[in-house]
């Protein structure tokens, strides 16, 4: 199908984009890579009167190191995130998850910021961002503000980005030397995750000293498996220890039931995939 009619602007600075949002009012929609928005427009599940294309804003693209952080521009493509050496060294978890997003064509167009702002509970990048305590920089009419990942994801497809605002940067603390694994369970190659687990661990002398685990699609927002994280600390990374700790993975989650899986099956998947992800990350 063909989208409903809309007006189109392509600002070249964040300031112009904020102004376009102000001019466009409630009915304006931001276009990042378009790999979620364009299908929605084609199905006429949305019919904004104005599309603001962020593709022309150079300052939103690319990565840089700033002290103990790696800062990724919101319009950096999945393709670029997946092959960046700095991220490989310091924030491997977001890279591992990004490699599993959709397919190569979608990764060429889709962006980190677009996916996070879309906040699909089955999307793959929110759980690692939460596990890594990423900071979200949001620009608006009153300047910029920074929101922690724990406060950014509010509900299904709902984030802390307010009216008239846009996501400009995602700031990741460095996890240099940590092992990372994104373990994803889906039916066919490019399908959404039924459940996925983002795990990154620090292993010192065979013992897990720190662990971060985020769950995809186990609630309306990504969830930290904190009970597993604390159960892992101080343990040797043996299969038995990890599987035992992973039994707590579904604690505090509220997974949905749909045609792919019931809630209890999702809880089972969370436990199994957490075990696999931690073992791989520790190995």
């Amino acid at each position, binding site marked *: *199908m*063909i*989208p*409903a*009619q*809309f*007006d*189109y602007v*392509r600002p070249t600075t964040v300031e112009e984009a904020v102004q376009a949002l102000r001019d466009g009012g409630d009915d304006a929609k931001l276009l990042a890579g*378009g*790999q979620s928005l*364009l*299908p929605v*427009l*084609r*199905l006429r599940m949305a019919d904004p009167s104005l*599309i603001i*294309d962020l*593709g022309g804003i150079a300052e939103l693209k690319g990565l840089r190191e700033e002290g103990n952080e790696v800062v990724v521009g919101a319009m950096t493509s999945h*393709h670029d995130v997946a092959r960046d050496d700095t991220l490989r060294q310091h924030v491997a978890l977001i890279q591992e998850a990004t490699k599993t997003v*959709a*397919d*190569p*064509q*979608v990764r*060429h*167009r889709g962006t980190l910021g677009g996916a996070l702002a879309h906040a699909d509970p089955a999307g793959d990048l929110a759980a690692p961002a939460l596990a890594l305590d990423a900071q979200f920089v949001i620009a608006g009419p009153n300047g910029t503000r920074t929101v922690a990942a724990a406060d950014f994801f509010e509900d299904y497809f709902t984030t802390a980005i307010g009216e008239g605002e846009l996501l400009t940067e995602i700031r990741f603390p460095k996890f240099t030397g940590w092992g990372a694994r994104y373990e994803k369970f889906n039916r066919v*190659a*490019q399908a959404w995750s039924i459940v996925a687990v983002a795990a990154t661990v620090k292993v010192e002398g065979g013992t897990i000293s720190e662990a971060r685990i985020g769950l995809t699609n186990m609630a309306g927002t990504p969830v930290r498996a904190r009970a597993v994280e604390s159960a892992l600390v101080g343990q040797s990374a043996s299969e038995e220890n990890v599987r035992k700790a992973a039994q707590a993975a579904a604690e505090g989650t509220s997974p949905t039931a749909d045609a792919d899986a019931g809630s209890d099956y999702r809880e089972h998947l969370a436990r199994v995939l957490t075990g696999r992800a931690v073992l791989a990350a520790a190995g």
Partner: protein
Amino acid sequence: MARIRTTVDGLVYEDDVEPRMLLVQYLRERLGKTGTVIGCDTSNCGACTVHLDGMSVKSCSVLAVQANGAEVLTIEGLERDGQLHPMQQAFHDNHALQCGYCTPGMIMQSIDLLGDNPDPSEHEIREGIEGNLCRCTGYQNIVRAVQDAASKMKPGASATQQSSAQPVAGGGA
């Protein structure tokens, strides 16, 4: 209406388009480049894959206005001087199609894949074309065709057909 200027298969086009026009519609309906097909229209099947500034994209998931100032390469731009691109030839030689509907997208994505990874394993080929669906072949001969093309497109390969053909490599390598 928005004015766009785009290079498609080596020629520059200027057109006024509605912002809502999809790139695949522009290619087919304005430029008559019907070699690029619409399969699922839901971003799943990859039949509409083209290269945009050297990277494979699903042209049903890009607006024509987003291609303003860009270079687009379609399946129709691969042939040189009457000679098929090595990937096209490999699909022909290995019987890598039955109904042929997925073929334009498969070939464009396979060229992109080799641009990134000139010597892919079978597994890497299957992952590389995971965004392209074929409902006829079971993929076996498609994978063989990509392996065949990879061996012929390798630097130093003696492929005589390349001497005059100058194949276009994609993938932003």
